[in-house]
């Protein structure tokens, strides 16, 4: 268990291509990602992006929605025709994320400006972990859904739905916990591992007890059956089977 850290990229020195027309942001994001052990390429528009993709193997693309010329949506759609490279979209229009998701351009995650650098890091790591594990397929929409015991988690909308079809709201910490469990079902996860998974976004924040988070998550999802089992002295285990793909 000790070799599994949710913070570190699954493949060492993964290459990230950042596409943004704001030079300042581009530089800042690149520097931040490099400081967090990523190889970083930058592009200011679709043309530069295409050139980068030709010249190097890219593991993930951070793509700004608002670009001069072809928009991020167009570029993402274009990319999906012949590539499975995961995409994290950046948008200043946080309010319109719902609509953009509805367009199904094939992005793997969305982040609204202004975002926390650590949030970006968390999203990149999570997407890389999921795609590089080789369990998912790039087909649009297929890899965004996770199913367990009749429940459904839309990882793009970050929305959990119970077997009745009722949306159950989760806090960021609860979502991260659930994702950690869904990524490794039926495996014992230590409290340290789970704590790491939930505090990546706010390293300075007060260390709230992982047990409190677990009990909050349980109150929301264990309406009919127990899903999270406590293994005394070792940690927790998520018991239901997890499947991916459309309902």
């Amino acid at each position: 268990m000790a070799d599994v850290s949710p913070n570190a990229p699954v493949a060492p020195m993964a290459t990230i291509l950042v596409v943004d027309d704001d030079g300042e942001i581009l530089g800042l994001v690149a520097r931040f990602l490099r400081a967090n052990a990523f190889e970083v390429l930058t592009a200011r528009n679709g043309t530069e992006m295409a050139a980068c993709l030709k010249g190097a193997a890219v593991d993930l693309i951070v793509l700004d929605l608002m670009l001069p010329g072809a928009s991020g949506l167009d570029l993402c759609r274009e990319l999906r025709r012949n590539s499975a490279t995961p995409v994290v979209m950046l948008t200043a229009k946080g309010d319109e994320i719902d609509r953009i998701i509805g367009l199904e351009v094939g992005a793997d995650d969305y982040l609204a400006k202004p975002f926390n650098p650590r949030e970006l890091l968390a999203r990149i790591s999570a997407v890389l972990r999921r795609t590089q594990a080789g369990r998912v397929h790039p087909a649009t929409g297929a890899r965004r859904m996770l199913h367990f015991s009749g429940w459904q988690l839309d990882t793009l909308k970050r929305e959990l739905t119970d077997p009745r079809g009722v949306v159950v709201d989760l806090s960021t910490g609860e979502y991260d916990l659930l994702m950690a469990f869904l990524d490794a079902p039926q495996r014992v996860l230590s409290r340290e591992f789970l704590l790491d998974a939930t505090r990546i976004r706010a390293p300075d924040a007060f260390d709230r007890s992982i047990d409190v988070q677990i009990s909050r998550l349980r109150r929301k999802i264990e309406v009919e059956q127990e899903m999270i089992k406590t293994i005394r002295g070792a940690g927790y285990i998520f018991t239901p089977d997890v499947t991916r793909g459309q309902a």
Partner: protein
Amino acid sequence: MTEVGGPIARWRALVDGLAARTILIVLVGIGAIHLVSLWTYRHALSQQAELASDVRLADQLLGIKRAVMREPQSARESVAHDLSGGPLEAHWSRTEHATPGGPGAGHWDGLAQRLKQAAPELGDDGLIIGANRRAPDDPHLALVSMRLPDDTWLNVSIVTVTPRSVEGHGTLLSTTLMAIGAVLVSMLMVRWLTRPLSTFAEAAKTFSGSGAPVAVPEDGPRELRDLASAFNEMQRRIARLVEDRTQALAAVSHDLKTPITRLRFRAEDITDAALRSAITADLSEMERMLDQTLAYLRGERTDERMQPVDLVAILATVCADISDDGGATTLTGAGSAVISGRRLSLKRAFGNLIENAVKYGYRADVSVTEVGGTVVVAVADAGPGIRPEDRERALAPFVRLEPSRNQDTGGFGLGLTIAYAIVASHAGTLTLADGVDGGLLVTVCLPRDGGAGA
């Protein structure tokens, strides 16, 4: 200007509406016309009656004169007596009894004229009409002296008959019916005329409520057409103005997001952890303010769709997040409450309410109950509450009830406004009241079906 109880005020209240005023005008007009025409009618009628009685009188007088003339002098008095009757009393004598002049001279002269006109033969030999000596002041008693061809006189005393009154209930009834009819017709016409005005009022209310221009049909009388056209133009201009300002504010709020993002990255380079977290906290607050502004400007326009959501899960998340930041919150009541709604909007609404409670009222005690088809969420705090006269104002945008505390509590008066708008968009209600143990009690009632089946 409150003229409570004054007669003018009471009068004004009575004829407040356009309809009442128009009816009043119609009634006064009809009344005046009727009075005038009634007077004219009755005057003409009485003239005619007088004329008719003059002719009759002349005929009678002539008849008596002819009859008496034919008789020898000895029999004349008895014939005259025989012919008397009714208002007439005839006597034969050698001298005239009537004396011209006197107080009623004008009246008698007029009568003499009319009689001569009716029967010219009467005046052939001589006709004197004068007051009766027995009652010289009574204009109704007259004495007519007619000279006969042999220079003797026939004196007829008459009671001048006033024409019978033409007053009848028929006239009054028809006048009343006509007035009622006119009032009914004028009510219908006034309604027809004022209907566009009601449309204006309705449109103005809708416009001030929703901000969306409501075009008023430009038809009807010219004045109303002009008014409608001006009104529509005004609505369009106001809407454009609001839209422009909204756009400007939204653009500024939106454009601030990029520099804040940059600052967030730059803050990562700060090695002093305390300074970094202070700056990060400031950035988060700025971000929240922008977020609230955009949420307020966006109003109803949201891309989120209605779907079944568990309100208790949302409240649990909000309470947990605030607790983690050191706020005192409790959540009691139903373990689940499913309504049709927009998750993120509802989360924002209750987030604002519960944050306000903790910020201004030191704690938030949230309870959830279900009553029939309605979910009732009560948020109670332990603060000073809001005075009843300030409650409506508290829901208005950019209103801060405690400006002095604003500096350390952040926010700028949009929290309640946004919560109220979101609850309203779910067909729910939000009310402010005093808590049982003091403090403010915010009660939100949301229909389970999101208002779809209401």
